[in-house]
């Protein structure tokens, strides 16, 4: 294949990556985006296989077959809940590949006795460093998430200092090799080993809950490693794709931190301040509640076919009736159906919910009595519980010891998923715990109902 054609095809592959990544960031185009990116990868690999400089295909084909098969098997076997650690593992392998390519190039020149030009030399050192950190860092992240090792932050005194010293040593050794191309092999191995160690030590002190951010960051590193490899083997597609992944990975890490209301620095070095890491809300009996971001809740609502809204006293306290109406309108405009389930004793006076919803001009024919609506919860995609508590407490059905046992309740827990808007884990009028909030299908959106609904309304407008 003429070199120019090769370059153009590489460029086309890079364009596929660019468009693919862009599309991956919106729900409506994500599937196609990922596939386009895969097509780009296929093009790049095929072009490479046709490269004139390749002399033997045996090893390559073996590697391709083995690698693809293993990859496919892993992807098939993994459980949906184990996705983050799988990404970590795969990412580590990518970093490892960059490390090896860099190392091989170095060793090749060493064997041939040819002095490397300075630019290649620098980028080889960087490939080694970044590739190695990505490899071991990702493996540690994998182990933490897979609970092979404890997910808790592992910190010891002087760790930060040690890491700094390690990094300095690696850089010094690398620089020495660049300046003395005729050098010995041991600094090369030292760089590799120290970098591998650095990867382990950098990820160890970070808690399991923050791993997704770390993985995203390591992903960015593996991109940069690939870009460095590109400099080493003078290949533009590697540079472009690597840089692309490198920068978008950092931005994504930042977005993820922002969604957790933290800074990147706080995630990376947070454990050194507070030894605890993030804590998830847990009830006395050790059950834990699942929180949801307004953005995710909005996406669920946007794609739901039937949403049943369960208003309660908290909605009245928050005086958020108009926002509920607006949210419902938005869902309906997207083609979803919205019904309101009015429990006879919701609120603090007979007809409280009626007054409230009438104020917001909710049409009467969308209000349903308990008897009318209870059978419909099963086909509801989302039950949106807003400031209600006792009236959706399953204890009334299950727990003969409960003071509300025997009271008919709204079957919000029968919906495919439940989103609860309340300020915290406060109890309702009856003053009792509500196990609905600990149901695995339930997600809590904490905050004053007015604030939460305002965010939901603005988020749902952005769901494409």
């Amino acid at each position: 294949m003429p070199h120019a054609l090769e370059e153009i095809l590489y460029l086309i592959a890079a364009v596929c990556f660019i468009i693919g990544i862009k599309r991956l960031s919106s729900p409506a185009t994500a599937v196609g985006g990922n596939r386009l990116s895969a097509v780009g990868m296929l093009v790049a690999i095929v072009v490479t296989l046709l490269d004139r400089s390749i002399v033997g295909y045996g090893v390559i084909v073996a590697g391709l077959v083995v690698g693809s098969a293993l990859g496919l098997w892993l992807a098939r076997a993994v459980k949906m809940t184990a996705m983050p650690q799988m990404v970590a593992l795969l990412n580590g392998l990518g970093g490892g590949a960059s490390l090896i390519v860099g190392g091989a190039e170095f060793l090749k020149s060493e064997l041939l006795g040819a002095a490397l030009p300075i630019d290649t030399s620098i980028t080889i050192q960087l490939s080694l460093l970044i590739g190695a950190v990505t490899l071991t860092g990702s493996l540690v992240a994998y182990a933490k998430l897979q609970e092979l090792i404890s997910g808790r932050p592992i910190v010891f005194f002087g760790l930060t200092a040690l890491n700094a010293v390690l990094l300095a040593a690696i850089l010094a050794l690398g620089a020495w090799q660049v300046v003395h191309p005729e050098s010995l092999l041991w600094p090369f191995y030292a760089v590799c080993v120290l970098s591998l160690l650095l990867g382990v030590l950098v990820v160890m002190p970070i808690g399991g809950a923050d791993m997704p951010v770390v993985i995203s960051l390591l992903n960015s590193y593996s991109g940069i490693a690939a870009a460095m490899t590109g400099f080493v083997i003078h290949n533009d597609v590697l540079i472009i794709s690597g840089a692309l992944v490198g920068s978008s990975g950092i931005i994504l890490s930042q977005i993820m931190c922002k969604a957790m209301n933290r800074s990147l620095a706080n995630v990376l070095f947070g454990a050194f301040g507070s030894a605890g890491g993030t804590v998830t809300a847990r009830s006395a009996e050790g059950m834990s509640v699942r929180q949801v971001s307004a953005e995710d809740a909005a996406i669920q609502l946007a794609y739901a076919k039937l949403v049943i809204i369960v208003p309660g006293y908290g909605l009245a306290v928050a005086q958020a009736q108009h926002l509920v109406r607006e949210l419902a309108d938005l869902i309906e405009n997207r083609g979803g159906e919205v019904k309101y389930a009015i429990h006879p004793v919701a609120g603090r006076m007979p007809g409280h919910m009626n007054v409230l919803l009438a104020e917001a001009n909710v049409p009467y024919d969308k209000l349903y009595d308990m008897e009318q609506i209870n059978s419909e919860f099963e086909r509801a995609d989302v039950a949106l519980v807003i400031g209600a508590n006792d009236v959706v407490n399953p204890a009334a059905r299950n727990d003969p010891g409960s003071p509300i046992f025997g009271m008919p309740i709204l079957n919000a827990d029968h919906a495919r998923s439940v989103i609860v808007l309340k300020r915290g884990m406060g109890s309702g009028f009856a003053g009792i715990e509500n196990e609905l909030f600990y149901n695995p299908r339930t997600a809590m959106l904490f905050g004053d109902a007015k604030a939460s609904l305002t965010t939901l309304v603005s988020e749902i407008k952005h769901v494409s």
Partner: protein
Amino acid sequence: MLEGFIAGIVIFTLATFLGVALINRVPPTLHTPLMSGANAVSGITAVGAIIVAGSGNGWISTVLGFLAVVFAMMNVVGGYAVTDRMLQMFKRKPEDR
């Protein structure tokens, strides 16, 4: 050589800015898929691995090349497949309404 290196730097810079500009607003549900999809792209190092493995520079290159190709291909194939699986939920929903 240097000429090519500088062109590389220019390309690297542009691609970096492009990466930043591409990712604007990502809903949290897409954080993991996007990360995974980008991770698959970083498997592009497979290109380098193939070149090393095929360069025929003695057994070191061959062994290392083989390893690199295996690692990189796991990253590539596994990455794309995993991402696709995660994205299934976005594929059916909008249609069946």
